[in-house]
């Protein structure tokens, strides 16, 4: 009797498991449908000062869309802490929004799940054509050679922010244009408890963004043509070492920065403790911390020599938010219309102005708002000298592995342990071995 009952229980469990795993995934209707043409669910990411602020910014625009097309958009602003988890759950179960924002570095990974609608020529035509968008922004939306998995929505790049007064006091007349100049200026500024440069040493993404760019400048890509990890090339090692050396050798970054992960480097800058910081659009944060706009200036991120450009003159990764559509949406035409609406010239001008980002739509960039000093630098960088992060499916593994290696190197530097080419290479070697597949 006991055995029978146990056998029954196991059979039940196995059949349920089979049912669950068999029904997993949203492949019921492979290409989407138009079953619910009147509604759309949209997951927006948090771009503004708060979730409530985001709702206030987006709701009028959604009402406009409803008036135009009669489609009601159900908006949910998802905090960053939850967004990836929820996208994962949605991908797993097939139960999710129709349209959503994704961080552009997630594009290749999500693309490989097969859950997102590919933007082939036909789909691009429906929203006005691929040429409307900046090339580098589209290149950050999926694997090269395949149709992108998303459409760029808000774009950003990195810039060098510097404290005008501290520069003037140290007798520096212009922001540095090359790394050597930056180190030199940094040394002049790093005294009396103040420091030349700030860094978020424990922020894995930030570490990747900085070292990737330095890698480009050293001619290294972190991934080879087949998409396999290559963290130990001379260029990659040199790039990581250069970044960590700002603290270890040049001593222009305060040791305390090694533990920063909550934008403390921005606070340090706003309070006049550091003179320079490399960041995406930081104007609103400085203002929130009490710094006046006239106190800081913006310049392009330095390059080894010469002026920023393509290839080895890259000085920023393409940052930003992409808009994607789930393949199994029940309102595929409506979703495309919504993407068209959000990437229209008019909406791009409105939204990017509010969020302080750069429109990836070329025509919208002509708005005078984007010629303001800070945005102008970002805009030009985006157009001429920004490169997309590796568009590989295991991009987030890359971020974790190499980002952690850099974090640990910063910890070494802060503790006073030597940072040598060998030690850098050893850590990157270890990181590379954790990359699976």
């Amino acid at each position, binding site marked *: 009797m006991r055995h029978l009952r146990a056998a029954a229980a196991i059979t039940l469990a196995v059949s349920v498991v089979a049912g*669950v795993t068999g029904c997993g995934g949203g492949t019921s209707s492979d290409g989407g449908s138009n079953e619910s043409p009147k509604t759309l669910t949209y997951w927006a990411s948090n771009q503004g000062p708060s979730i409530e602020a985001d709702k206030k910014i987006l709701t009028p625009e959604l009402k406009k869309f409803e008036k135009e097309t009669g489609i009601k958009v159900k908006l949910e602003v*998802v905090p*960053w802490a939850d967004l990836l988890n929820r996208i994962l759950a949605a991908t797993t179960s*097939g139960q999710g929004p129709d349209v959503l924002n994704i961080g552009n570095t997630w594009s290749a990974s999500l693309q490989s799940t097969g859950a997102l609608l590919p933007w082939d020529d036909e789909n691009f035509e429906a929203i006005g054509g691929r040429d409307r968008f900046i090339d580098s922004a589209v290149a950050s939306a999926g694997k090269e050679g395949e149709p992108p998995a998303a459409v760029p929505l808000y774009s950003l790049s990195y810039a060098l922010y510097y404290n005008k007064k501290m520069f003037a006091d140290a007798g520096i007349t212009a922001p540095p244009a090359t790394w050597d100049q930056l180190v030199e200026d940094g040394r002049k500024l790093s005294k009396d408890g103040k420091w030349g440069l700030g860094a978020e040493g424990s922020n894995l993404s930030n570490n990747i963004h900085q070292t990737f760019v330095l890698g480009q400048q050293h001619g290294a890509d972190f991934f080879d043509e087949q998409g396999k990890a290559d963290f130990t090339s001379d260029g990659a090692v040199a790039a990581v070492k250069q970044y960590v050396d700002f603290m270890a050798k040049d001593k222009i970054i305060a040791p305390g920065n090694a533990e920063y992960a909550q934008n403390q480097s921005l606070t340090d800058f706003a309070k006049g403790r550091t003179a320079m910081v490399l960041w995406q659009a930081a104007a609103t944060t400085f203002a929130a911390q009490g710094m006046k706009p006239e106190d800081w200036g913006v310049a392009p991120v330095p390059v080894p020599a010469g002026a920023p450009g393509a290839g080895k003159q890259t000085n920023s990764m393409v940052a930003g938010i992409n808009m994607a559509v789930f393949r199994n949406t029940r309102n595929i035409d409506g979703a495309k219309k919504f993407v068209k609406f959000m990437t229209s010239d008019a909406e791009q001008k409105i939204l990017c102005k509010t969020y302080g980002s750069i429109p990836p739509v070329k025509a919208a960039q002509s708005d005078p708002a984007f010629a303001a000093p800070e945005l102008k630098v970002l805009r030009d960088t985006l157009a001429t000298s920004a490169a997309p992060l590796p568009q590989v499916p295991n991009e987030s593994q890359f971020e974790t592995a190499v980002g952690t290696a850099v974090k640990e190197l910063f910890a070494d530097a802060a503790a006073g342990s030597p940072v040598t080419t060998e030690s850098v290479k050893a850590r990157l070697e270890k990181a590379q071995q954790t990359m699976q597949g």
Partner: protein
Amino acid sequence: MPSRDGHRAGRSPMAAPRSFLWTRRVVLTLLAGFVLLPVYVMISSSLKPLQDVSGKFRWIPRGLTVQPYVDIWDTVPLARYFVNSLIVAGAATVCSVVIAVFAAYAVSRYGFRGKRVFTVTVLSTQMFPGILFLLPLFLIFVNIGNSTGLALYGSRGGLILTYLTFSLPFSIWMLIGYFDSIPRDLDEAAMVDGCGPLRALFRVVVPAAVPGIVAVSVYAFMTAWGEVLFASVMTNDATRTLAVGLQGYATQNDVYWNQVMAASLVVSVPVVAGFLLLQRYLVAGLTAGAVK
């Protein structure tokens, strides 16, 4: 057994020696200090403007302001999250305790096939890391939703079901122990008087196990109140709970530390008040009901 609560008014001849009293004072002061240190930091941070919070630490803050306590309600829909948490935690607690009482009564009072399997399985659920069955659980909820139309994901109901199950194992285990200590004579006496076993449970066993039930309710409530991982995936904007919602103060560009602290303190006040009220039930003699 007489309740010990409040029975000792003055020093009796069997009072503790001075050395014990002094040790006690020192130890309790140290523990209180340890507990209070972060609370003090929370309170003082909640009263500072944002710029000062990230500044150098000072024991006495300068420039106090109550603004954060006003802002917390706007930055994040705190009131809604609070209500959601109350509903979810409250419902999960009530259901969990009721189900646990039934289960514990069955294990404590009856012998039956599969009892050991049940208790061992219940214990083994405590060993599995939550991250692992997060996605499968979500999948199950979605499948249920697809086949029955009962949407458990994104709803408070799904979260209630999840949380009440999370607190079941420990609750059942503890209640088995409490029930075991209540002598069978009481049940038997009641049943001789004509009660069925269920009436006996409610009229005799439960009143005798009140402190145990209260302790277990506190545990179930706090488990539901503070759970983050499953709430982050299972809720949407309308049903989000506090534990996850508090992270909304960390936005894309800024982290509003002062508001995080203020909001945490505000939502914890009712919980601490609840503790204060429930205390006396906790420490009454566990076998008060057995005293005849």
